[in-house]
């Protein structure tokens, strides 16, 4: 029941609707009592032979009016209560989505997309159930149950009522016991299902790998095992679930037997009429639903509880990276000073970066090279404020980057990530991602700079070509250049190319670098690359090694240093020399 308290903020917000809805529900549960009462009266009148035509007509008209009133009241509470529940799911979904947009990459690394999706769908659904069916069953079981019992006690026979109710506590006890068992088993079943879901998701996104390795059979086997697990866990749920109905049937049978046994005694003792007995047993029938509802209530509320705590847990995760109070509302530009003593990725024990210090003047280009895993991308991620918690400072345009509003900081940075992610929409919309309303001409211009314009015109749909999920229908180099165009269109103050020319050929690489050189005169650029040709002419090059700067300088200075850079250069040249040696 905790969840109902936790949701009180929402109930307060929808006070009026819930009050009116509940009033309508209560009205229905009162009116519901009329038909059996009237049946009882008429039966009695018939047995005693005192039924008259006007009397009968009167009762029937009352019944008719009650029926119509009930119809409207039933419609009304649905709109009020179920409507509010739908609103709750909308509100929560919005909260969750907005929360997701504030979470930093480390949040996403710890979780699987499938699981987050489950929160946004199943858990929200469970909440909707709580605020709708939950409230309904609560109110209904209390009011219908209460009124029925009261009517039985007051208008027929309170002793018989008590006797008939003897088995009911057992039922409440049993159903809530089942509910508890069910909850645990249900959770396991949910988990099994979500494993199956994750498995399917991964098989499909990795389909090419599975095909390449011809592992379809093994994969299907794996899937079969998981789905067998789903069956098993669900059977465990079913074993409990199937207990509810028979239990209720059984307990009501006991109630009936008790009430008829004692009812007969009262009738013989002339404490009660036969009509009373008939009405009594009809009332008893009316109790089935509130009792069932009570059982449901346990289940719904239990699920709601679990879901609400999962959602609030998610919502309570504070965004790791936020604007400081009084953050600078200015787009940073100027020199960049990068001074990191130490940095660890949140999930890692080892230092990813240590003692990385460099400065970059506005308008300069810097190259970063280094072995795989040496920390090149890590530097860029810190610049983008994707991660924090480092020892040291990063000053851009005169202020530490964490003192700017995030929005403004990112406005200055055009980022082309190493793993490009394209959205499954048209090429034009992908390029114009930062500003969907931008003029077509600007899109073309950015594409020309990224040397992709001609490729795009070559497609039968041109800029309206849908790129497929993650850009699958483009070649590797095309994907890379679309994401370069996406960054260039915002005319960034600081352009970051993270190994973004790895899938393009030398000619295209040169053309892109040349275009950048011409169009970006006063702005700063950072390029990481494994091919030295891409960074050779940078104003400054740093060589990363195991998370720290091993060497720094210009191409010539680095060559003169006779260190790692020279080694790398020679390796790249060596192959050339071998060739040329062969040619001579």
């Amino acid at each position: 029941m905790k969840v109902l308290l936790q949701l009180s903020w929402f109930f307060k917000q929808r006070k009026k609707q819930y009050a009116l809805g509940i009033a309508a529900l209560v009205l229905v549960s009162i009116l519901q009592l009329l038909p059996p009462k009237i049946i009882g009266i008429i039966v009695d009148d018939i047995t005693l032979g005192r039924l008259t035509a006007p009397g009968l007509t009167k009762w029937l008209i009352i019944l008719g009016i009650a029926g119509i009133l009930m119809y409207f009241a039933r419609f009304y509470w649905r709109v009020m209560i179920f409507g509010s529940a739908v609103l709750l799911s909308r509100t929560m979904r919005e909260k969750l989505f907005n929360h997701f947009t504030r979470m930093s990459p480390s949040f996403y690394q710890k979780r699987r997309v499938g699981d987050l999706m489950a929160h946004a769908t199943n858990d929200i659904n469970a909440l909707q159930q709580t605020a709708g069916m939950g409230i309904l069953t609560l109110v209904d079981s209390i009011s219908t149950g209460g009124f029925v019992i009261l009517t039985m006690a007051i208008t027929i026979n309170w002793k018989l009522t008590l006797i008939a109710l003897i088995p009911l506590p057992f039922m409440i006890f049993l159903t809530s016991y089942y509910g508890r068992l069910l909850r645990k088993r249900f959770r396991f079943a949910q988990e099994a299902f979500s494993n199956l879901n994750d498995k399917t998701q991964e098989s499909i996104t990795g389909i090419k790998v599975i095909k390449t390795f011809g592992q379809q059979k093994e994969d299907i086997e794996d899937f079969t095992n998981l789905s067998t697990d789903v069956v098993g866990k669900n059977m465990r749920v079913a074993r409990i679930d199937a207990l509810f109905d028979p239990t209720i049937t059984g307990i009501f049978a006991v109630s009936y037997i008790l009430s008829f046994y004692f009812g007969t005694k009262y009738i013989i003792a002339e404490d009660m009429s036969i009509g009373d007995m008939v009405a009594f047993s009809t009332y008893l029938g009316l109790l089935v639903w509130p009792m069932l509802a009570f059982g449901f209530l346990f289940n719904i509320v239990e699920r709601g509880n679990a879901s609400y705590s999962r959602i609030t847990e998610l919502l309570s995760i504070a965004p790791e990276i936020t604007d400081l109070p009084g953050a600078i509302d200015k787009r940073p530009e100027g020199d960049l000073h990068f001074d990191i003593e130490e940095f660890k990725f949140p999930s890692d024990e080892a230092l990813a970066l240590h003692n990385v210090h460099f400065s970059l003047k506005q308008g300069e280009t810097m190259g970063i090279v280094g072995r795989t895993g040496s920390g090149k991308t890590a530097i860029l991620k810190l610049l983008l404020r994707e991660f924090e918690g480092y020892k040291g400072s990063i000053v851009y345009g005169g202020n530490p980057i964490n003192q700017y509003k995030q929005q403004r900081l990112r406005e200055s940075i055009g980022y082309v990530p190493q793993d490009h992610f394209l959205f499954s929409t048209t090429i034009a919309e992908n390029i114009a991602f930062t500003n969907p309303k931008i003029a077509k001409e600007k899109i073309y211009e950015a594409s020309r700079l990224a040397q992709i314009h001609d490729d795009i015109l070559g497609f039968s749909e041109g800029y309206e070509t849908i790129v497929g999920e993650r850009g699958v229908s483009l070649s590797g180099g095309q994907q890379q250049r679309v994401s370069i165009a996406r960054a260039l269109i915002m005319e960034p103050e600081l352009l970051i190319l993270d190994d973004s020319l790895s899938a393009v050929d030398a000619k295209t690489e040169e053309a892109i670098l040349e275009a950048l050189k011409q169009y970006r005169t006063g702005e700063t650029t950072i390029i990481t690359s494994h091919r030295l040709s891409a960074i050779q002419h940078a104003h400054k090059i740093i060589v990363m090694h195991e998370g720290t700067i091993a060497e720094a300088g210009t191409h010539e200075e680095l060559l003169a240093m006779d260190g790692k850079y020279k080694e790398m250069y020679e390796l790249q040249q060596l192959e050339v020399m071998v060739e040329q040696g062969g040619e001579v």
Partner: protein
Amino acid sequence: MSVEKQPKLTGKDQWQVLKRLLSYTAPHKASITIALVLLIMTITGGIVGPLIIQRFIDNYLTPLNFPEREVTAIVLLYIGIQLFMVVVSYFQLMRFQDIALKIIQQMRIDVFSKVHGLGMRYFDKTPAGSIVSRVTNDTESIKDMFVSVIVTFLQAVFMLIGVYIALFSLDVKLALISLLLLPLFLAIVVIYRRYSTDFYQDLRERLSQLNAKIAESLSGMGMIQAFRQEQRLEAEFDEINEKHFRAGMRNIKFDGILLSPAIDLLYTGAIIFVLGYFGFISLDSPVEVGILYAFTTLIGRLFQPVQQVMQRLSIFQQAIVSASRVFKLMDDNDMEPEQQIVKNAEIGDGKIEFRNVSFSYDGKADVLKNISFTANAGETVALVGHTGSGKSSIINLLMRFYEYERGDIFIDGVSLKEYPQEELRQKTGLVLQDPFMFYGDIESNIRLHNKEMTPEEVRGAAEFVRANDFIEKLPGKFSHRVTERGSTFSSGQRQLVAFARTIATNPKILVLDEATANIDTETEVAIQASLEKMRKGRTTIAIAHRLSTIQDAELILVLHKGEIVERGTHQELLSQKGLYHMMYELQNSTIEDVI
């Protein structure tokens, strides 16, 4: 964002889908028969119960005459029936669950297997999210149908028949009149179905839009944030959310007008009628109150199943829509290229020959035009060319990801189409342009499903590509956890693991699609050296933009807009002074003042 439309189904389509769904019950005939017998027993019990009470009221209570033996008998009968019902209904419920779960499992396996048989073309055009929905969520909503709808419908039919039999045994005339209720029920169902189909589909469509939006936003969150589009996305999401809300409200109102409130109204009407009927008769001639009691109870029982059917209608509706989507996938004929297997075709030396192959993805523009070349056994053939020139496409054909119609490809003189698929997969190894990592650990990422591979082989493969350098530094080494898509590794590290995975299978034909694009030169040279050592007896096809990595190939093909424009060894190509020469010059001249 691509959003799938729910299919519009005509009545006939729905019927077809239902029939096909029911055909899944065939293997469970015996079990279903048992379940049905149990169901009939439960229902009979439910009807006999009130009849006994009625008999008790009429025969003993009204005359206040209680012959001990008869009363004991009737009470024991009642108790017996109730006990019997408790037990039987439990087993009946379980049995149906069991059947439903098994059917759904079979269906899931069928769909999943089918998915594995589909060609890449299908995956290019279908979002992963919607395929996943087919396999899991859609089948789940079909399960609801097998669990609750079918039982409810059957129960309703039996119940209706049973109740009517009872009614007829009580009072033929009144029973005949109450038959009139049936067309009324039917009318409500028909009207409801007519409109709810549209409303309901609208709601489902909005829901799948909502989910698609969440899913894509979650996987592209990094980009959304880097380009500070959070607010735009939130606004777009709000709009979809709002529409979904409206559709939900409309459904509630509509259900409120036609569903249970309407049936309840009808029930009150029926009661009024029964009371009126008996009441007015009783004014002239005596009636048995027991019958009146039984009638009102039975009328109540008549409405119960109808109520339940109405409540299940929307589940039923959704199950039909879901099933039609699942069947659509199952009937899709975008199949994986088919093999016309010639017995015993085995890859021996691994000589590859392309003969006049042309290919198009969309049937309009050719991305490969008349490609012919031969890679002799043990040789290395390199593909170079501008981006988008069709290099990966050649590999897509060689790997049988896409079917080709024009020209043919031979391995050891036998057409690619004539090898059993397993043979091809076993003997060829591909390192993909963008590496994919599975959730799990490093070792499982290298070994994949191959249980026979020893840990030594896994390590050996990692050493081969120099991946052990970084793996050994990880806290868990080879059992270090890999998160979704390997997001905690650097791009190069991911590529190394993917490379090791292929090396571990020790393929006869090795295909490298920019396998070292994100890897540093030092490691690359080391990998080259390892490859060189193992070159004997292995045919290699390599794509690389870094020409240095492929210059010792026996044959270099230069692609341009889908055509091979130059071919030869490195030396030959250089002396041709063509495209290759230009590309080479570009890479190796100390580029003048580029930046």
